[in-house]
């Protein structure tokens, strides 16, 4: 079957090559040295930076996306606003990469519209206060442009699945708004929200083009380090590069599989 041979040759085999290489010494013997090498300060720092950035961006994306979804679906917003924002989200969640970075440079860069306006009108120099678009929080704000729309899109079915009857039942038993959310809404939504958080985490973890366009290759998250390793063997050890790639695959797989697992659990309520 052409499909199976194609994916085997060009997807599974190359990835397996890296995975096997991650457990080989340069002369081809089996070793755990490369995986242990991931603990070297440069690589560990890079993983830690990636994890923190992905965590922060996923957390902000989850919270804001959830708030927005709640406002649009349960907050009594006109239908056309909801429809417009959902359509926009479909576009924005695909608008990642280099152009997104450019738009944010024009917004929050040193000469960006928001930066300049804040300085001129309010006298607030955000760069003077230590903010930089080309740093951790600048990247987190930029990622939010595709994270929040993605959250809105993936969480909408779960929020729509909160049945009106549950709320009515809770209210007729005398529950307050906060009691309803605490005892009914939150427990039902929790698996979906956690799942979506993991999806956003993986989404941020794999982001490369946006970072390169914003920071050159100075901001060494894991994809950037791997990119440099492929370009110029900056780790001076090819097999260590394979281990770096394997680490990325592992983090991506764990978050994606947990996402799928949690989504299945959440679907129990949507029948």
């Amino acid at each position, binding site marked *: *079957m*052409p*499909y*199976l041979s*194609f*994916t085997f040759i*060009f*997807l*599974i*085999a*190359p*990835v397996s*090559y*890296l995975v096997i290489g991650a457990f080989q010494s340069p002369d081809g013997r089996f070793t755990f040295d490369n995986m242990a090498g991931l603990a070297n300060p440069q690589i560990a720092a890079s993983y830690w930076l990636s994890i923190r950035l992905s965590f922060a961006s996923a957390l902000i994306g989850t919270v804001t996306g959830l708030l*927005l979804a*709640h*406002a*649009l679906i*349960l*907050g*009594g*917003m006109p239908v056309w*606003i909801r429809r417009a*924002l959902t359509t926009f989200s*479909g*576009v924005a969640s*695909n608008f990642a*990469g*280099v*152009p*997104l970075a*450019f*738009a*944010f*440079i*024009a*917004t929050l860069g040193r000469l*960006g*519209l*928001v930066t300049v306006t804040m300085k001129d009108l309010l006298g607030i120099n955000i760069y003077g206060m230590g903010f930089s678009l080309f740093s951790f929080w600048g990247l987190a704000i930029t990622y*939010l*442009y595709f994270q*929040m729309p993605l959250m809105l899109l993936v969480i909408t079915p779960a929020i729509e699945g909160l049945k*009106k009857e549950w709320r009515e039942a809770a209210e007729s038993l005398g529950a307050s708004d906060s009691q309803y959310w605490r005892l009914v809404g939150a427990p039902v939504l929790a698996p979906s929200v956690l799942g979506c958080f993991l999806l956003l985490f*993986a989404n941020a973890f*794999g982001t490369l*083009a946006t970072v*390169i*366009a914003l920071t*050159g290759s100075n901001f060494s998250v894991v*994809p950037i380090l*791997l*990119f440099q390793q*492929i370009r110029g063997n900056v780790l001076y050890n090819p097999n260590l*590069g394979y281990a770096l*790639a394997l680490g*990325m*695959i592992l983090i991506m*797989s764990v978050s*994606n599989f947990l996402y799928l697992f949690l989504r299945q659990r959440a679907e129990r309520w949507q029948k």
Partner: protein
Amino acid sequence: MNRRFRIGPSLVTLAAILYFFVPLYAAFQFSLQMKRGELSLAAYGSVFQDGVFINALTFSILASAAAILFGALLVVPTAYWVRLRLPKLRPVVEFISLLPLIIPSVVLVFGQIRMFGSSSILPLTTSDWGTNLLLVIGYVVLSLPYMFRAVDNGMAAIDIATLTEAAESLGASRARIVFTIIFPNIRAAVVSGAFLTFSICLGEFAIASLLNRSAFGPYMVQLGQDRAYEPAALAIMSFALTWVLMGLMQAFANMKPGQGLFRLPFQKKSPRP
């Protein structure tokens, strides 16, 4: 649900709209300021007059188109055969199609460069056409999750078993069934997957850059380092393009099987005599 005006949700929605809108407005405004003291479209003109821009864009359009064609030829017969004859293989095929979501493109291209490098059995990266081929293959792999889902949804909407039986009883060969019966019936789904593939591959950076192709993604990054106003113009243009592509994708995804390709979804079919 009561429809009275509520302050919290309204504020949240307004904040979100602002957050979405401001970067687009900022990029647009910035892109108009190339000439000192006046608003002009000079940045856009400067982008289009750059021969490198045209070359890079043409290259990426061709590579994406090749990936779409190759991807459709790979996925359509597979999805068909799995649905019709090999439902047991379905979980495997579907799982493989989802793998590119787990394996970052930078890892994928790393593996391919090592696998098909100069000292391997199939040294694709040593020649120019071989590297181009590898780029297209990389794009096919990247788009597998989307292409497979689009095509598979399209097949779910038609009765392929009956269509196949009818075609077989008239003596059609297997290839003929796939290309003249199944394909036309799911072309809206294929086109929908194609637009998504196109929007993913056109500005793709990691694979193109690591294979040293002068494609659109690496060109944009270079431009961002060299120029100030042109990148903003590019951001606006690519946002508009993404919007168009997503709109077309949606329109085609919602089409009914066999509906004409150039009939807009909201137009009613003219009554047949």
